[in-house]
């Protein structure tokens, strides 16, 4: 039983990070109908910034959580302004390709400026672990699970009840209608990218002590975030969180009780099953229509 507990906690830890990564992807997609394949690179930049703050400059750890998400959000908003806004009238394929190569460019820029296999970042908490019925839970693990999920939930609330959140939902539903209601496309799109970038930056700060900072982090997070988003339902913020958790726990259980070699393929197997059985995802947003 303790063994199962350990596996579930480990799965939840990675799942919480996947949820955060998926959430940023879904926010941008929900507002702008763009799948941002540069999202993993934003998260990698967040993790790298975390290394600079915590290790290089040795500032207090909390500053990484406070400074980095808005910083990466601003980078994402600037990229939207400089690169994606001119492509707004281009077809979807062009925009997707632009984000793919934007992600590659950001990763390569990092590789060229800091050519090392891995940068290690210590955890925020290093105290004694909690023991629940033989299950060890470190303070860092608890912080990652609880912190990531609380922040994700706060983002869902902001999106649902905040003015700009309403604007993004309105834009996603009907661009022309939203404009007629007074929402600015430019401002809403830029805010969506800011929020998506901030979520990616936050995912980077959470993942840095768990996985270290490397170029490979970009691919690892975009693939996990994408799969989690699709499993949950790509237009559902709640689904992104649940999809991330489900993915992390499923990977962990499969590796522990089937084979460690099965860990990587289980996420794609899960993706195929969900796409075949429920293409709209496991937790899609309910759509109410007045008739």
């Amino acid at each position: 039983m303790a063994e199962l507990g350990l596996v579930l906690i480990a799965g939840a830890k990675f799942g919480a990070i996947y949820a955060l990564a998926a959430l940023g992807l879904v926010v941008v997609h929900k507002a702008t109908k763009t799948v941002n394949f540069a999202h993993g690179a934003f998260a990698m930049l967040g993790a790298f910034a975390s290394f600079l703050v915590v290790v290089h400059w040795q500032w207090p750890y909390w500053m990484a959580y406070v400074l980095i998400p808005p910083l990466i959000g601003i980078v994402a908003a600037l990229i939207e302004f400089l690169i994606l806004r001119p492509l707004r009238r281009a077809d979807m394929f062009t925009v997707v390709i632009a984000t793919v190569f934007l992600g590659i460019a950001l990763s390569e820029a990092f590789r060229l400026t800091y050519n090392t296999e891995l940068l290690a970042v210590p955890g925020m908490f290093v105290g004694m672990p909690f023991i629940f019925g033989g299950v060890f839970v470190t303070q860092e693990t608890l912080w990652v699970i609880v912190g990531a999920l609380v922040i994700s939930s706060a983002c869902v609330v902001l999106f649902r009840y905040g003015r700009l959140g309403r604007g993004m939902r309105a834009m996603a539903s009907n661009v022309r209608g939203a404009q007629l209601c007074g929402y600015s496309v430019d401002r809403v799109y830029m805010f969506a990218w800011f929020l998506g970038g901030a979520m990616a930056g936050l995912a980077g700060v959470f993942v840095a002590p768990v996985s270290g900072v490397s170029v490979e982090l970009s691919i690892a997070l975009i693939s996990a975030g994408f799969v989690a988003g699709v499993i949950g339902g790509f237009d559902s913020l709640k689904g992104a969180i649940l999809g991330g958790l489900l993915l992390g726990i499923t990977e962990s259980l499969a590796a522990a009780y089937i084979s460690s070699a099965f860990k990587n393929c289980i996420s794609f197997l899960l993706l195929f099953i969900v796409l075949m059985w429920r293409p709209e995802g496991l937790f899609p947003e309910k759509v109410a229509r007045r008739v």
Partner: protein
Amino acid sequence: MRRGSYLRAALAIGVVAGLASTAAPVRAQEPGVSDTEITIGAIGALTGPLAFIGTPGRDGMTLALNEINQKGGVCGRKLKLNYEHASTPAESLAAVKKLVEQDKVFALVLASGSTGAAAAADYVRQVGVPTYNLYGSTPIIREPFSKNVFHGAIVPVEVAAPGLISMFYDEGHKPQKIGVLAGTYAFPQATLKAVEDHLKAQKVDYALEKFDQSARDFTSQLVSFGRQKVDSVLILGSFSEAGFAIKQARELGMTNIRWVLDGSAVSRAIVPIIGNADGIRGYFNNPAFPGQNDTVKEFEARLKTFLGSMPQGRPNNYDMIAYGSTYVVAEAIQGTGCQLTRDKFLASWSSLKDAGPTKMGGLDVSFPESFTETDHQGNYRLGATVVKNGEWQVYRVIERP
């Protein structure tokens, strides 16, 4: 035939013979050798998961070549390095072919680890280019023996495996069951076979778990070890994989484990990942760890000056091997008596005894290397290392079993 025709034929033969005689010295010039330079080609990964091998390979070689060239070079010629990035087997083979066929290098250095060395093995044997395998432990580059392929500081897996296992028994430790955590890619797999053979021969109880390259979650493997009451773990993989595996083991409550790491994981960069890494062991392919004595401290200072700033985890094993090995190549070139032909070079290399940097004014950061006509493995020694107060230290030299 008329007399005029005889004359013309004789004249033509004379002209051809004359041209041939003037061209002869040009033809005799070996590939990669000019009046001012000797070109050495090298391959290694500068980006990607294996960059922790290839990048120090390039930097260590360049530092040594700069030092040699500042002292006038070898045989009145500067040594020039053509370093090609290569990560995958296909890239490695393409890079080697480019260096040999287009750049026409005098000697080739494989600074690529087992993946690149295995990919290039057949080709370098076939074309006969003098080749130095810096980091590849794979038997594919070592067997069958070839007169043009030499191996330096990295010992064969049959030597490394008993050395690794011996560290479980240091200071009276008696492992009940050893867990082997091995990467599924080339170099951990090369060592794994030798480790398993050795464990079976010694009738040691062990459990095996595997992980993919760049893995970060080892929960399932560690839970399996816990289930099997493993009290000692050998990790065959990179420092990042080993670091996160040990960190997670502690998070899972596995605190009384003796950890022994493959040489590729013995790096300063593992300490920040784990936090308190004291007691972790592994082998190092050089006689002293960076910071351990004045010679390696001086090496570190020179490398830092050369790079501008020292990246995290550097200098590592690969910086030091590349530096020392470049001096071995230079010594082999000098040993030709400046008759720079491939045959003379191979003969000179095959007769080197205790070759190392100090003979040419460098720093002895690597084990001295000796070769014979029939044994092209330059070094058989390993440094057994342990982390004390957050720093790796070589605590004994493991001799050839």
